[in-house]
């Protein structure tokens, strides 16, 4: 299977809000497989979302088991119709995106989340996540809502000021 072409900015389609998945069938599973191949094809992406390849359904893949320094993670996850049910804390971290080539920036994300999502078989799961993996999920769910990390980048100095006030 060939990797799918990735939409890159300023493609307006990246701003589209994706629709929930309603049918958990073979066609869906084939797409998930193709999405995974596309994720692995690029430069070390820990996640990918369906709208990045032009399919506007609430499907994403996250796999934080591949980081340079190991981080707490749930391995390879297919997240369909994902919903974050609880947020806690926040921190600044550096992000890039397959849809935003040659750019990285600092983004504030929740440090702990609870997540509800279906897998490609239509089975519902609940996850508790922290740190890098929680960040990856928030980044991917943003794609499903038509939001890119560049819409959330904070200025160089924000980091320091926030720390001062809240820590």
């Amino acid at each position, binding site marked *: 299977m060939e990797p799918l072409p990735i939409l890159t900015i300023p493609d307006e389609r990246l701003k589209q809000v994706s629709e929930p998945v309603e049918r958990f069938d073979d066609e869906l599973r084939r797409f998930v497989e193709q999405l995974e191949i596309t994720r692995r094809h690029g430069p070390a992406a820990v996640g990918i979302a369906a709208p990045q390849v032009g399919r506007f359904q609430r499907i994403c893949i996250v796999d934080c088991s591949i980081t340079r*320094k190991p981080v707490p993670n749930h391995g390879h996850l297919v997240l369909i119709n994902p919903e974050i049910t609880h947020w806690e804390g926040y921190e600044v971290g550096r992000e890039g995106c397959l849809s935003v080539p040659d750019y990285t920036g600092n983004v504030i994300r929740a440090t702990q989340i609870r997540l509800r999502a279906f897998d490609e078989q239509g089975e519902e799961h609940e996850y508790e996540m922290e740190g890098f993996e929680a960040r990856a999920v928030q*980044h991917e769910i943003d794609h499903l809502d038509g939001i890119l990390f560049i819409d959330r980048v904070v200025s*160089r100095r924000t980091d*320091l000021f926030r720390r001062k006030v809240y820590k």
Partner: protein
Amino acid sequence: MNHWYMLTLTGADRPGIVAKVTQALYEHGMNLGEASMLRLGGNFTIMMMVSGELEAEALEEALQPVARSLGLSLHVDEMEGGLHRHLVPNIMVRVSGADRAGIVARVTGVLADAGFNILDLESDVAGSPDKPVYLMQIAGIASVPLETLEAALAPLRKEGIEVNLSPVETLVG
């Protein structure tokens, strides 16, 4: 492709500097590249890559009126290099301590000896005039493990300089 110039502009901060300078550049058909603009000690500072048809001298002439009207000093250098040469940092160094001579030299000296390449350094003085606190954040690329840098920086802690290192793992998604 036209070559790039590095434009430096500094002067007392006031609203409208960026708008007026970039308007003048636009009117002369110049394109902007990467830039850093920020307020330092009540001054506004601009370091900006620009490219276009104009020769260095003509570019300086074209900008001189707007620079003068805003009270900015202007400097133009021809530069090597260009866009799309970003490097991604893998380590963040945060430093704080009582403001005193040599703190930056000490820390960056240790980093340089370890082959650490600074990509972005921000430093500031917080606290109050009689009790200044020096703060610095450095993002860069280390080619040695974090633990090696950690060990190299440890002696500085005994001198009351707070230094902490953290890995930067850039999320790509």
